């Protein structure tokens, strides 16, 4: 895109493709029965994590959701250790104690995925409080879904962050569904961004399938937070392409509807169209990034599969610090 730094464009693409390939690999191996537990895929929502985290450094914090692979990757987590965790291996981020829903990498400011919907909001708020009290320039981002916006954690955290002017960004990923429940039948407002007004903070809506738009909206919110202006609510509108979890029979919508929407919304093909129509990134460049990412994911998969499972004695470590 004209006016965009080439390195940033490459970063956008690399991150989105890494998330996509990572998740496709996870899906395949879950369906093959090699991955236990639950897996919630982020496919189709890659532009959000990518656009938001491109504004953050490793000193900044994010708190994530049950659909957290994309957030971790965008924040800079190592895909091999993520894959190993999802496979329940000792070499995983959490030594095999967390799994897909609980990946964390504190070394890059990723404060953890959360199996409890809405769990991320007070945690990010508290991390922002710490940053403010320690006079650090850090900001915290809470990712959460449209479904989570109906939980008390959202309302309490938004109010607290606003009265205390905390450097936190409430980043709502509105993928139109909470499990099987469509947004319209569970949420009282037209747009979740409307709720910001109730808490005295800006609320903006952004096209969550457009990495450029997400980047710009997040940038404004991050700058406001870093500058002492307090919290913001950003609602990124997107669409959940895959089932709620891998294996979801998806009785609440038709395959055709999903395919039709995906053809329009897929953030990766959209990005490819945008950059190639303007000649900002060549086809060769895009292809070479894809190849590089595929290698990375292949390595991650091999690493995970070759890694040992934790020894049963590990059950008793880390219960207490």
């Amino acid at each position, binding site marked *: 895109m004209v006016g965009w730094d080439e390195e940033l464009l490459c970063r956008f693409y690399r991150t989105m493709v890494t998330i996509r390939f990572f998740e496709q690999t996870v899906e395949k191996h879950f369906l093959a029965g090699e991955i236990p537990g639950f897996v919630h895929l982020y496919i189709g929502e890659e532009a959000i994590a990518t656009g938001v985290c491109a504004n953050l450094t490793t000193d900044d*914090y994010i*708190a994530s959701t049950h659909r957290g692979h994309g957030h971790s990757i965008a924040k800079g987590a190592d895909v091999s250790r993520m894959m190993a965790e999802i496979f329940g291996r000792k070499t*995983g*981020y*959490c*030594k*095999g*104690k*967390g799994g897909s829903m*609980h990946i*964390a*990498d*504190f070394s890059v400011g990723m*404060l*953890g995925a*959360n*199996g*409890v919907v809405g*769990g991320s*909001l*007070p*945690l*990010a*708020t*508290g*991390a*922002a*409080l*710490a*940053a403010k*009290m*320690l006079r650090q320039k*850090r900001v*915290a981002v809470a990712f959460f879904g449209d479904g989570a916006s109906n939980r*008390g*954690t959202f309302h*309490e*955290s938004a*109010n*607290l962050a606003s*009265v*205390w002017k905390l450097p936190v960004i409430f980043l709502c990923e509105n993928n139109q569904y909470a499990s099987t429940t469509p947004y319209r039948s569970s949420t009282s407002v037209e747009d979740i961004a409307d709720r910001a007004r109730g808490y005295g903070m800006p609320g903006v809506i952004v096209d969550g399938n457009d990495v450029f738009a997400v980047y710009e909206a997040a940038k404004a919110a991050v700058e406001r937070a870093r500058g002492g202006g307090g919290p913001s609510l950003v609602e990124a509108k997107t669409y959940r392409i895959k089932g709620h979890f891998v294996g979801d029979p998806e009785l609440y919508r038709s395959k055709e509807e999903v395919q039709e929407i995906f053809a329009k919304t897929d953030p990766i093909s959209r990005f490819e169209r945008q950059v190639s129509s303007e000649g900002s990134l060549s086809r060769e460049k895009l292809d070479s990034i894809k190849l590089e990412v595929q290698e990375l994911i292949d390595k991650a998969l091999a690493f995970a599969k070759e890694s040992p499972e934790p020894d049963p004695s590990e059950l008793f*470590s*880390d*219960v*207490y*610090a």
Partner: protein
Amino acid sequence: MREITFAQATLEAMEEEMTRDERVFVMGEDIARQGGIFGQFKGLPQKFGLDRVKDTPISETAIVGAGVGAALGGMRPVVDMHFADFMGVAMDELFNQMAKIHFMFGGQRPVPVVVRAPDGLTNQAAAQHSQSIEAWFLHIPGLKVVIPSNPADAKGLLKSAIRDDNPVIYFEHKRLFPVKGPVPDGEVLVPIGKAAVTKPGKDITIVSYSYTMRVVMDAVSILEKDGIDPEVIDLRTISPIDKDTILNSVAKTRKLAIAHEAVKQGGVGAEIAAIVAEEGLDYLDAPVLRFGAPFTPVPFARTLEAAYRVKAEDIYSGIRALF
């Protein structure tokens, strides 16, 4: 030794720890402007400012959740629950977030949060302001739970809790706040996980904690008149439970009674009875006695509250019957 109240002892602990470590701060409802309902935060804002002694909105979920987030961000928060009864409002933050983050994320980061929770019967406060709910937290790995019975332990345990890298729930009985007792000058640290033998004896082991320790001591003074010499253990920490002190004592006295204010069913006493049944059954010469509240919510009327409360006479006559 000087005598100060339980509330003053906790205040001293806060003052000393906030002075020692700048990362320690406290937040909760009406603690700064009011000094806490029981005076347990009086003067702290004047000394440390409203940035480190924070009045919060009425948002228990956010208070505990943000406390956990702040701990992950490098602070050492103390969060006040106003009344232990309101912990239910923040239960997810207490047992799904705070308790599990260290384990679930493979030990990447400790969660040094202290949750202060005033509990217990006082002043006919009825069903939602008087509960003793410590047993809920005994069932959750990852938490430490402490529960002092006197000013010296109140100070020493709070200081240890603040320095501990794990989440610690600190129950403080509302009726203990005005109670005076000797507290040494200077550094008082009571180790978490260590019970105290507050009165050595040979005829029966009585295990208790919190306000009920006072009730137990009243019963003991009557038992002594009858020539019965009980050994009394103040648990001080209920998770992890100090099994060794209990088992060693029961090996010596060969009898066991447990007393607490919480309902008997599923209580701390049940756990201790089970531990002794599992690991020290041979020591026992008599059935284990448990004294706790009946299985009913805390009532309001004076007569009903009195009937609910564990009394020294109950403990006395229960134990007397064994001899």
